[in-house]
């Protein structure tokens, strides 16, 4: 089931150029402060097709398949809550869902950089339209 979902996602992927491989060493390699300019090496990734590896995490508790999820650098939150520049918010194509996988996954898709606010609060810094999750 999980394998089939991953395969479907891969098949559904739009034609992609060679993705830029990035990592949390880059994305989280600076101290994020709200409203301050982000490093150039980060903003250069905006709207590029990017590939990043990490652990899947639900944004809200539950056990059902998800359309949106987070990618973080560590499996267990025991070692500190990820800061906003330590989280990539992933969205699968509309209508698609998948189970949260254990272990490390690689997510590829169009990457967006920038503060997203809701009710005056920064809720996201990095987003990706997840075309491929392996």
């Amino acid at each position, binding site marked *: 089931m999980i394998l089939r979902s991953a395969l479907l996602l891969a098949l559904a992927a739009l034609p992609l150029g060679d993705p830029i491989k990035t990592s949390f060493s880059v994305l989280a390699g600076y101290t994020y402060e709200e409203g301050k300019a982000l490093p150039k090496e980060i903003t250069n990734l905006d709207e590029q097709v990017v590939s990043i590896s990490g652990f899947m995490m639900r944004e809200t508790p*539950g056990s059902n398949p998800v359309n949106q999820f987070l990618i973080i650098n560590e*499996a267990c*939150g025991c*070692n500190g809550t990820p800061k906003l520049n330590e989280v990539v918010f992933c969205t699968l194509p509309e209508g698609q869902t998948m189970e949260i996988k*254990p272990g490390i996954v690689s997510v590829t898709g169009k990457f967006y950089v920038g503060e997203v606010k809701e*009710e005056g609060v920064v*809720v*996201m810094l990095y987003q990706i339209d997840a075309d491929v999750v392996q």
Partner: protein
Amino acid sequence: MKPLHVLCLLAVTSPLLALLPQQDPPTNWAVEVERACTAQRYGMRLAAGKKIAAAGAAAVPALRAHERVVGRNQLPATLLEAIADATPCDPEVVALLREWATDRDFYWRATALRGLARRAPKLPESADALRALFADHVADPAWLCRVHARLGLELLGTPAADQPAETDARAVVKLAVLLLQAGRVPPLQPLLDALDDERTVLADPFGPRLAREAFDALKAWLGADHPLASGEAFTDRGSGVQALLEAARRKSGQTLQRPVPRRDPAVPFAGGFEILSCRNGDQFVCWTEAGELHFGLDGAVRVALDAAVWQRLSAARAALDWSGGLGAVVCDNLRVRWAAGEVHHKVAPGALPAGAAAWFEDLAAAVAAAGRADLAAVLRVGIGQFRRP
């Protein structure tokens, strides 16, 4: 007073109301706690958690009321982290942190312990009580509890004595990082050793994570003495480690050695499992095709099972049924992973299928029969948390 006079008085005085000091409406802490716990957006939960943490005593009644209704383990890590890292030292906050830190079944008790450790130097009237609390946890099964207990003792100026040296690489690095962040300079060798760590366990690259943690801590501590200007990168790891080593030597005056590379053993593992438990402590077990079990994050403890026993265990393992829901993982979890059948699952406490629980019991019995009753006993405790009631 005639109505006309009243109207005149109102006309004259009402503009003066604007001159009165404006007061913000009081914060509804129950709403903020609800938002910190259940907001759909992660960022919203983070922000609400920080607001609650900064409020100190004012938000404590709402926190207590919320945990009474939903249960303590429904409080999210983000909220606990925010409170631990905040500065308020109100007695109500300290009392709450103490309750959380001493609740063995609370997922985030280690975080609460960190909150107490960071506040300890500012609470001279509670120093003895906190010292006793930290001393109770320096040998805790959960590595983060051990780290935060040792941090508290260090910050109180009474480092843990007569304790066995910490052997968990994560704990050794974390304590050094936290001390540096607190303005103390610990022995830096553990951080340098971590810089060349590439080890993995069940495909989880814990070594590179430690390397990153150590690198960031050294970079922040070195500041202007860091060998690279901002934005530059080392050309390769070897030269980078050497440059950091020399900079750390100069700034600390410590005798520091170049780290020995840490790599996975040249053993082809066929599978294994890990238990991440803030309650009972973590366990890591990997095995070879031939039935040699490697225990621990570094796989240093090895137990060879009888070939026939291993064959029977392997056949039983291949037949395990993992369907039917493995629970919603919040913190503690059991992860199983093996190549045969491409099995890879995470199991929440109380959600281990009966067949799998029986298999782990058979495994523990085999380990005991191989002469390691101590490891078998620890394994049984670890698995016990995940058995279905």
